């Protein structure tokens, strides 16, 4: 299991290639890539604040729990923090399991938890100024499906 918090952009294709190589016994790899939205011009820049040492520990706890619950072979979470431009990837989740259902569900749960419960503080900068973002009702309900 790997959890990485970084300010540098990443290439989802390269992460997938590295994650899925050499897995003769893994039947299924599922990945999710989250991309910063421009929201029709309302967001010019996203600023994601993390608490290194705390944020990554909490994500690792979520990833460990998903790994155990869905009997995964492996999990990878790469999450950016700092300034992020629309169109850039923010988060990459990969799950590896013997069968596809477990890999799909684990990635789904992990993303629902990351979107609503991961310790980040998100600020959107747009033409009208900056605003702090909190999880939407939908984000919160999505996460509760797995509790």
């Amino acid at each position, binding site marked *: 299991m790997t959890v990485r918090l970084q300010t540098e952009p990443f290439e989802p294709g390269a992460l997938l290639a590295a994650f899925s190589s050499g897995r003769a016994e893994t039947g299924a790899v599922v990945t999710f890539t989250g991309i910063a939205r421009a929201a029709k011009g309302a967001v010019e820049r996203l600023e994601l604040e993390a608490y290194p040492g705390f944020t990554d520990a909490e994500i690792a706890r979520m990833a460990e729990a998903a790994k155990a619950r869905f009997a995964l072979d492996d999990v990878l979470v790469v999450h950016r923090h700092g300034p992020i431009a629309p169109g850039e990837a923010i988060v990459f989740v990969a799950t590896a399991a013997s069968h596809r259902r477990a890999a799909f569900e684990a990635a789904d749960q992990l993303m629902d938890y990351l979107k609503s419960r991961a310790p*980040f503080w998100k600020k959107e900068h747009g033409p009208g100024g900056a605003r702090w973002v909190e*999880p939407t009702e939908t984000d919160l309900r999505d996460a509760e499906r797995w509790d």
Partner: protein
Amino acid sequence: MRVLLFGRLSDAAGWRERIVETPPATLSALRAMLAAEDSALGEALAGKGVQVAVDKAIVRGDAPLSAGAEVAFLAPMSGG
């Protein structure tokens, strides 16, 4: 002692991180000290959904603080 503010709390205070040279012995004493210097920040720290981590572990209520502690006040989190 290192004090860190996250999210909207650092906007309220105008700083993100500071070293406290005369570290209070408890979290409640630290809160009182920060509120005495900046009442708006004191209110923000006591606001709904604000959590505290001491040495990167969440604490609830009051807690003793060592002189070298890292105390982080966490505004409500946005998720990733």
